């Protein structure tokens, strides 16, 4: 059901024993088993083997490079072995391929992998925690001292950004592309950004042309 490569009788009759074995393993493999090909050092493969191996991967430019660089590393493409295994990447290192190259070579078409970026990773986390920690003395100073242009101005920046990051986390969890589609998610994320900008503008205007955030809370609470 899966590989047309294996299903074609012509391909089967011309393929090497190792590939027929691989094809047989693949079509009869258990539900959660994965079949991997990797290149090993050994006798030089014929061009037909290379073609079969190339066709077995869903291709991107990186996959080509990954395969070629692994040839460069190993010197030659040896006999292609298939393994039936439940584990994921343990065979990659033995073939001299990095996990990125393996990932690029075996990339399924239904999903896109994202290159890790610290700006969206640990730096975002650091920024979020620093902001949250800064809110504690800010609220304390505002409550104790009352209205002051600096604390009000800072509140008008820090609180909207904190709210934005909270909403962003909720959108990532509940309104992701798998749920609402790629463009639905984009629309929601950009709407959130626009609303946050409006909130920042509103806070600035309120702090400058009106009584300020702390004074508003104080007056409306004791009204």
């Amino acid at each position, binding site marked *: 059901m899966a590989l047309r490569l294996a299903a074609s009788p012509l391909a089967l009759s011309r393929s090497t024993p190792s590939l027929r074995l691989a094809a047989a393993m693949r079509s009869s*493999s258990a*539900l959660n088993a994965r079949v991997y090909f990797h290149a090993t050092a050994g006798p030089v493969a014929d061009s037909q083997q290379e073609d079969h191996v190339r066709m077995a991967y869903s*291709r991107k430019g990186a996959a080509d490079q990954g395969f070629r660089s692994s040839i460069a590393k190993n010197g030659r493409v040896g006999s292609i072995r298939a393994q039936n295994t439940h584990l994921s990447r343990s065979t990659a290192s033995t073939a001299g391929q990095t996990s990125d190259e393996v990932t690029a070579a075996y990339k399924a078409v239904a999903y896109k992998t994202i290159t890790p970026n610290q700006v969206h990773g640990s730096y975002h986390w650091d920024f979020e925690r620093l902001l949250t920690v800064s809110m*504690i003395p800010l609220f304390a100073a505002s409550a104790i001292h009352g209205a002051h242009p600096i604390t009000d101005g800072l509140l008008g920046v820090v609180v909207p950004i904190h709210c934005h990051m909270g909403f962003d986390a*909720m959108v990532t969890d509940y309104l992701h592309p798998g749920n609402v589609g790629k463009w639905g998610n984009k629309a929601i994320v950009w709407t959130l950004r626009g*609303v946050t900008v409006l*909130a920042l503008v509103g806070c600035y205007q309120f702090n400058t042309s009106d009584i300020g955030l702390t004074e*508003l809370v104080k007056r409306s609470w004791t009204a």
Partner: protein
Amino acid sequence: MAKTTFAKTRLMAPVGIRILSTSQSSQKEVTVAPLIEQRKNRPLSPHLTIYQPQLTWYMSMFHRVTGGAVAVGFYAGAVGYAVAPMVGMGFDAAAITSVIATVPVGAKIAAKFIVAYPFTYHCLNGIRHLAWDTTRFMTIKGVYQTGYAVLGLSTVSAVALALI
């Protein structure tokens, strides 16, 4: 007929069997849109309704809910103030305080508690989260003790704020 064939070869294949093709062009035909359509029609397994109620995830859920509620209120006020001049609506501090002054005392105290409690709960639980980020209280006992502390303190402080 074509739909079921498509489903059998493209969408309903068991996990672990990779759908491979021998040409570049057919890859581009496999899009994510059918998967999204499937997910919209597929029912979710019960999750929140069947998991044993525990302080841990109840409080975590409440942290997110209160955060969202306070943030929605804050955004409504800020964005409302920003766009009010454009729609000709009078929305400034004086208008707000004069409207609040007309509300009866009992309703004011109740409303102040309803507004204060999410805020105090989210603040104190936020401090609990920050303590976890410094690796403190990362035991079952620590989580439960700090959890009860947050619940108690937030209620007490919300009552105190409502009576100001």
